């Protein structure tokens, strides 16, 4: 602090405390609503202090949303996407930085351009590909005039359908590329002189060095994959077996005009269950999360 400004300091504190309350208020209300019974939660205005029905509501929501199964699904999918992204990003960045071939820059740009094609704008055709993953190759064969019929490989209602289309990563590749470019050449030369081939160098020199990058990327990608909503909604029709946690929220929403009176206490309990894993990860791995955010997007 440079100067003494008691009035401004007081105003600063007031502003920050107020924003703190305002920003976290929605989460508090969700929590409070999840602790009351059906009657209390529908009162106007609703109480702002927690009641005593929290575990009851959690159990009801757990039952109704089939969370025993879908939480496992979400975990498998989120870990699958995160792991896949890290491996693929590291491998392709290694190829682009540490080998010299003519198509290198073309590859780099091909990966770069995918940044401009978010899933949401190509959902319809990507869905068609997911219904038959060999479709692009069949299309190419047809175009080239071959009358070979490839078998159909349906990704709908499967873990691979939930995971594979979301693995490719431009941001992860950049992150690794930026990092590899800062690794001193002397290290590579020394490793080569000691007789290490590229794979050995990658596994025993580059990977240990990039641990912090990996942690940052993993945290942010885990949260991102857990929160995926549109893609699982399209790929999964077998809700009993393959639904993910975020998808269940749509079922818990009451109809807009007709139907049952909204059971908000259970809905908010379900919401808490869905929110819990990513919030836990971001709180525990705060440092990595923030670092990952700032590095992957810049």
């Amino acid at each position, binding site marked *: 602090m440079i100067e003494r400004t008691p009035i401004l300091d007081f105003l600063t504190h007031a502003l920050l405390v107020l924003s703190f309350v305002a920003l976290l208020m929605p989460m508090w209300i*969700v929590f409070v609503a999840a602790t009351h019974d059906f009657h209390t939660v529908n009162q106007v205005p609703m109480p702002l202090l927690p009641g005593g029905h929290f575990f009851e509501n959690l159990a009801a929501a757990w039952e109704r949303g089939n969370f025993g199964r879908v939480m496992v699904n979400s975990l498998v999918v989120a870990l699958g996407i995160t792991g896949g992204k890290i491996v693929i990003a590291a491998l392709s960045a290694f190829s682009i930085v540490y080998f010299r071939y003519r198509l290198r820059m073309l590859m780099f740009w091909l990966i770069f351009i995918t940044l401009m094609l978010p899933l949401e704008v190509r959902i319809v055709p990507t869905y068609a590909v997911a219904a038959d993953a060999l479709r692009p190759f069949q299309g190419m064969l047809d175009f080239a005039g071959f009358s070979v019929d490839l078998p159909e490989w349906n990704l709908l209602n499967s873990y691979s359908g939930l995971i594979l289309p979301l693995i*490719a990563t431009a941001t992860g590749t950049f992150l690794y590329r930026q990092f590899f470019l800062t690794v001193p050449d002397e290290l590579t030369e020394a490793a080569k002189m000691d007789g290490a081939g590229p794979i050995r160098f990658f596994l025993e020199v580059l990977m240990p060095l990039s641990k912090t990058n990996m942690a940052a990327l993993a945290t942010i990608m885990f949260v991102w994959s857990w929160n995926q*909503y549109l893609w699982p909604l399209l790929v999964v029709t077998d809700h009993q077996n393959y639904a993910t946690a975020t998808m269940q929220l749509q079922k818990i929403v009451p109809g807009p005009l007709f139907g049952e009176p909204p059971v908000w206490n259970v809905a908010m309990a379900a919401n808490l269950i869905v929110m819990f894993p990513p919030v836990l990860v971001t709180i525990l791995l705060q440092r990595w999360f923030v670092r990952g955010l700032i590095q992957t997007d810049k």
Partner: protein
Amino acid sequence: MEKRATFSNLWLAAALIAPQMLLIFVFFYWPSGEALYWALTLEPPFGGDNEWVGLLNFRTVFEDPKYWNSVRISITFAFFATTLSLGVAAVLALFVDRRLPGHQVYKFTFFLPYALAAPAVGLAFRFIFSPDAGFVSAVNRFYPDLWNPALDGYDAFALVVMAQAWTMVGYNFIFFLAALQSIPRTVNEASAIDGAGVLRRMWDIQLPLIAPTLFFLIVINITDSFVNSFGIIDIISGGGPARATDLMVYKIYTDGFQGKDYSLAAAQSIVLMVLIVVLTFVQFRYIERRVHYS
């Protein structure tokens, strides 16, 4: 930047990059190409190969007032959500950066909303702002029907803007704070010695110095409001009432998967793709040049 020390096994290089290339070919380039093909063709009613129709689908899209409605709504939505979240985040970051006692607490909490899934935020806001239960419904006690997002388009629109802005405040806050902390303390101290007060320094020193971050965030926020808002819209309003919150991505989804009109959805996808490419281009070219770097 180039590496001096490289490896020469080109087969290995190809094998290393192959998985990524395969994935982006199958799930990015092929579908984007197919979107273009579908946008230029129509499926005949009784089966058979698609018929080439040129720009007919685009004409159908552009002549549809519902489409222009969704374009207008997307742009208004992007404008309000971005302005609101960037404004709040900038003010918060400036004041947290004063580093008064306790400022660490805010650093750890303000970004939490960003970790939440869009549909979860949607569900929370739908309850809090529900017209007959929850938190805000109390206003209807005093003025009946003052607030009803299920029936009033403006209310519903305001609600989705707030939900979107709320998720992005934390994200923007982190970037602003990081930018502020990278400003050398000496700059701030020098202007304090010259007699500039705290607010004057924020306005004339700190804000101009974080301008690059601001412009970067504008583009990210606009793209996010086009793309990531799907979960919020789907849970809160389903595009309604009376298409008051029918954003472009949501319309593509309903036309493509509920209306089963792939050609129409594909044509809209192409338009959105072009829009996002232009935005990204603007980010890399135009804005970078006009912003004052320290």
